[in-house]
Structure formats: structure tokens, C-alpha cells
């Protein structure tokens, strides 16, 4: 709960800094504040009274782990994204928007009442709509923002309709009470099933699972690259955590209503996301499609419908976020140096830029799920948690998807060492720090996977 209050306070401080003219310090204040938040988050580990604010939020250990993942990602992101804070006029606006987006994300991972879920999703989304369009003169950014807004609001409609039907059946928004209703042979099954289906549609839109993914590549491609990085890490983590919480806490006993649908969605997402990523010529767009396929893997944790699914989800989102932040930081550097993100711009960069090459190799290997890096154990835990009470079918599909993904992740690595280029890309100190941190986390999580998969 302290994390939520502290982050809101930081956001408000951003607004105050604009009013009282100290906005040039806000970037540094934010990073200090985020590190403080990370520390305070862990103080609440094993909280004896996780339910707070009239049972609106639940800061149990799972929620705290997710908050930690989000805050770590946010710190790394802020350190890599100094370029979008260069423009001194809008620095306070952008910082505040990102911080409030983070507040929304924290609400989404810690809600215990569907009202909080809705408010969290909206706080997060509205900030991201604005951030996607933050390059005002750029048509691609405008288009990205407009599409994101229209599709986001459309999805919210479905989500709300689903919530309304569930409310109609249960007469409550509280997750625990909904769970109780679902377990005691519900009488209004028609309302429950309709509601669950609509919720699946709405949340699948938010995590961009196929067939509700069509907006994602365009939005990811058009937004400024730092914002894309944010959308494919923090937004995805928060959305999947919210999805997991709602379905495994409240609707676990009615899994007959969603298991089959969600299995097909996961399978199609994995295969299609990976297949289309193979044919992309731009690294940014390739990562957008790979992000879609990762949403498919993450759905396995929801389908697992047990607590080890939650553990796997925390591990996977951390591994995925760290690798993605590093990958986007590298693409942003190349974009700055070469002017576009096509694969041809990466040619020969590996020989003269050892740190860049190392970070690319490790993050790509981690995303592809090659042992012994973090991504491999993420997938491993996901699959084992799924296999605890399901057959092998979907895991085979996921493995085929991973095999396809190796092709395009390696393509980027191979391109970096192919051809000749004498260019040395300048890397600023903080980005160097982040790349090294990302490498360390990826390797450390890979070598000591038990660090994060302990008992909670």
C-alpha cells in the first residue's frame, strides 16, 4: 500500500514541480523516488493484513512481487529513456504521465475489487494514449495514439459489459465474494458465462492476444521507441497480472466457461505472433510481434489455474521485461545513429561495439528461451505449472512457437556480425549502466533460478 501512496505522491510532485518551477530536477527526483519505492515495497512482505482501504486492494506477496517487477522495470526504463525527457518544456508532463501510468499498473496488480481493476486499467491506458502521441508533429505517432485510443476504449466497453453481467449474477464486486458465489453452484449461469466471455474478450484486447491483436503492431511501431518499450513491458505485465488474478481467484471454479476459449487464444497467439515476426524487416516491428507471441506464453499461467502459475508469471514477466528493455534500448541507440530500425542498419555493429553486441546476444537468447538464461527458466516454469493439471497439447504448440522464434531472434544477432561497419555507436553512461544491469539480471536469474521461484 505504501508503494501505491508513494508512487501517487511522486506523480503529484511532478505536477507541483511544474507549478513551482523546479521541473529540471524532476527526472532525478523520480529515479530516487522509484528506488525508494522498491525498498519500501519489500518492507510489506508477508503483510499480516493484506486487505486495505475497505477491502479495495490486496497487497499479498504475489501483488508485492508484481509491484517489484513493475518498479524495477520502471527504473531501468527511466534510465534508458533520457532522450524523451530532453525537451525541457514537457519534461514534467511526461514524467508525471509515466508515474501515473505506474500507479494504474500497481492498482491492476493489487486490486481486490473489480472497481479498482477498472480504475487501474483506465489510469494506465489514458496515460499511455497520451504518451503514444507525444511526438506531436509526427503522423505515425498521431496514428498510433489514435488507434490505441479507439481500440483501448472499445476494449474497455467489452470489459465493463462483462463486469456488469458478473455483477448482475453475484451482486458484488469483491473478488472473494465472487469466488464464493462461483463455488456454491451459481443459479444465474447464463449471466456468469456471458460475463466471463466478455471479460476474456476485453482483457485479451489489453494484452494483445490473437485475434484481438490487430492494433498492437501499428501502435507499437508508430509510438516513439521509448514508449513502445514501456508498452511492451509495464503495460503487458500489469494486464497479464490483472487477467491472472481475476480468473484464478474469482473464476477458478467455473473454468469450464473459459478454459477452452483461452487455450485456443493462447495457441493461436503463440503460433501466429511468431510466424508473422519472421517476416518483418524492421527490428522494432519484429519485437512488437514477438511481444504478441509472449502474451500467448503468459496465458499458459492463467490456464494452469494454480499458484505455481503465479510464481511462473512473476519470473517470466521479470525476465521478459528486462530483456525487452535492453533490446529496445539498443534499437533506440541504432535509431539515433542510423535513422531507422531496419535490420540492415544493424549490419556489422557487433564488431566495433562489444557491449552492444553482448547485450543484444543475451537479451535475444533470453527472449528466445535458450538455456541457461532467464527466459529459458521463465518458459520452463510456465510449462511445468501448466502441466500440473493439463495435457501436453498446448505445451507442444508453445515449443513449436519457440522454435520458430529462435529464427528471428538469431537473425538480429547474425546481422550484427555480418558485413563491415567501422561505426562506433556512442553509448551514454546511464544506458551503459542499464545494459550491464540487464545482462547481470538475465544471467543471474538464469544461473540461480531458485532466487525468485521461492515460496510464496
Amino acid at each position, binding site marked *: 500500500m505504501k508503494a501505491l501512496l508513494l508512487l501517487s505522491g511522486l506523480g503529484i510532485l511532478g505536477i507541483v514541480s511544474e507549478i513551482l518551477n523546479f521541473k529540471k530536477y524532476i527526472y532525478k527526483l523520480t529515479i530516487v523516488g522509484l528506488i525508494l519505492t522498491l525498498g519500501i515495497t519489500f518492507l510489506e512482505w508477508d503483510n499480516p493484513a493484506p486487505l486495505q482501504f475497505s477491502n479495495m486492494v490486496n497487497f499479498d506477496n504475489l501483488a508485492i512481487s508484481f509491484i517489484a517487477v513493475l518498479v524495477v522495470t520502471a527504473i531501468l526504463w527511466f534510465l534508458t529513456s533520457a532522450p524523451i525527457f530532453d525537451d525541457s518544456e514537457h519534461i514534467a508532463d511526461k514524467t508525471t504521465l509515466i508515474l501515473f501510468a505506474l500507479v494504474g499498473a500497481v492498482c491492476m496488480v493489487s486490486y481486490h475489487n473489480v472497481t479498482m481493476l477498472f480504475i487501474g486499467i*483506465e489510469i494506465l491506458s*489514458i496515460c499511455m494514449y497520451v504518451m503514444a502521441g507525444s511526438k506531436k508533429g509526427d*503522423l505515425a505517432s*498521431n496514428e498510433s495514439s489514435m488507434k490505441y485510443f479507439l481500440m483501448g476504449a472499445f476494449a474497455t466497453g467489452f470489459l*465493463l459489459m462483462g463486469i456488469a453481467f458478473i*455483477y*448482475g449474477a453475484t451482486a458484488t464486486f469483491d473478488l472473494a465474494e465472487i469466488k464464493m458465489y462461483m463455488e456454491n453452484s451459481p443459479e444465474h449461469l447464463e449471466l456468469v458465462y456471458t460475463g466471463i466471455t466478455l471479460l476474456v474478450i476485453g482483457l485479451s484486447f489489453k494484452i494483445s492476444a490473437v485475434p484481438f491483436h490487430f492494433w498492437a503492431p501499428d501502435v507499437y511501431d508508430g509510438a516513439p521507441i521509448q514508449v513502445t518499450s514501456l508498452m511492451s513491458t509495464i503495460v503487458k505485465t500489469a494486464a497479464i497480472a490483472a487477467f491472472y488474478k481475476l480468473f484464478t481467484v474469482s473464476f477458478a471454479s467455473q473454468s469450464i466457461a473459459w478454459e477452452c476459449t483461452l487455450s485456443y487464444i493462447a495457441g493461436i497467439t503463440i503460433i501466429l505472433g511468431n510466424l508473422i515476426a519472421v517476416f518483418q524487416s524492421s527490428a522494432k516491428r519484429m519485437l512488437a510481434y514477438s511481444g504478441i507471441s509472449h502474451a500467448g506464453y503468459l496465458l499458459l499461467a492463467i490456464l494452469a489455474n494454480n499458484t505455481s502459475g503465479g510464481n511462473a508469471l512473476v519470473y517470466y514477466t521479470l525476465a521478459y521485461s528486462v530483456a525487452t528493455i535492453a533490446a529496445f534500448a539498443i534499437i533506440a541507440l541504432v535509431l539515433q545513429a542510423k535513422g531507422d530500425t531496419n535490420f540492415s542498419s544493424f549490419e556489422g555493429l557487433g564488431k566495433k561495439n562489444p557491449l552492444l553486441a553482448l547485450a543484444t546476444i543475451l537479451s535475444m537468447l533470453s527472449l528466445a528461451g535458450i538455456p541457461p538464461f532467464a527466459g529459458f527458466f521463465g518458459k520452463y516454469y510456465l510449462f511445468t505449472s501448466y502441466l500440473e493439471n493439463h495435457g501436453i497439447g498446448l505445451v507442444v504448440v508453445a515449443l513449436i512457437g519457440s522454435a520458430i522464434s529462435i529464427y528471428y531472434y538469431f537473425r538480429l544477432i547474425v546481422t550484427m556480425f555480418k558485413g563491415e561497419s567501422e561505426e562506433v555507436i556512442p553509448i551514454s553512461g546511464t544506458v551503459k549502466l542499464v545494459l550491464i544491469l540487464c545482462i547481470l539480471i538475465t544471467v543471474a536469474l538464469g544461473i540461480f533460478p531458485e532466487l525468485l521461484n521461492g515460496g510464496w
Partner: protein
Amino acid sequence: MGTLQAIPLNHYILVSVILFSIGVMGVLLRRNAIIIFMCIELMLNAVNLLMVAFSAHHGDGSGQVFVFFIMAVAAAEVAVGLSILIMMHRNTNTTDVGFLNKLKF
């Protein structure tokens, strides 16, 4: 049982679902961004109607509180949406979403 029960709950559900479907079809079929906004609002209002009907049926206030939140959030959303629309209009001089084709699969 609330006081509004002269009209059966099924009819409320039917009306909201019809309104919601009109909104969905509007979003999918219309090409003007402002009309799409209006259709999204229609979807949200269908939800509001349903929530209030259920709330009266169950005699439970939380549904109505939820409606307040939907209204406030919808206003914020529309404010952001209209701002994005103005930004788009400045650059392209149109509100037709057909121009959103610079980014292709």
C-alpha cells in the same frame, strides 16, 4: 427487491444489450472518428443502464457507485480522445479514420 420492479429485469438487460450492440456495430462500421467516439459512449452508457438496473434489482448500492466511476472515467477518456483528434486534425485536416494507413502490416 427494489422499487423499480414493475418492469421485469429481462427487459432492462435486453435494452442494454441492444444499445451495446448498436455501439459495437457503429465502432466497426463508421469511418468518422467523432462518430466512433459517440458509439463508444453508447457502449458505456449501455453498461451504465445495465449496472443501475442490476443495482436496483439487488438493492445494492455498489453498482451505482461503479456507474459514477464509469462516468468520470468516460469524461477523462473523451477529453484525451478529443485532444488526440485535434492533434490529428491539425496534421491532416480530416477526422476520417481512413487516413490511418501509414503503418501497414
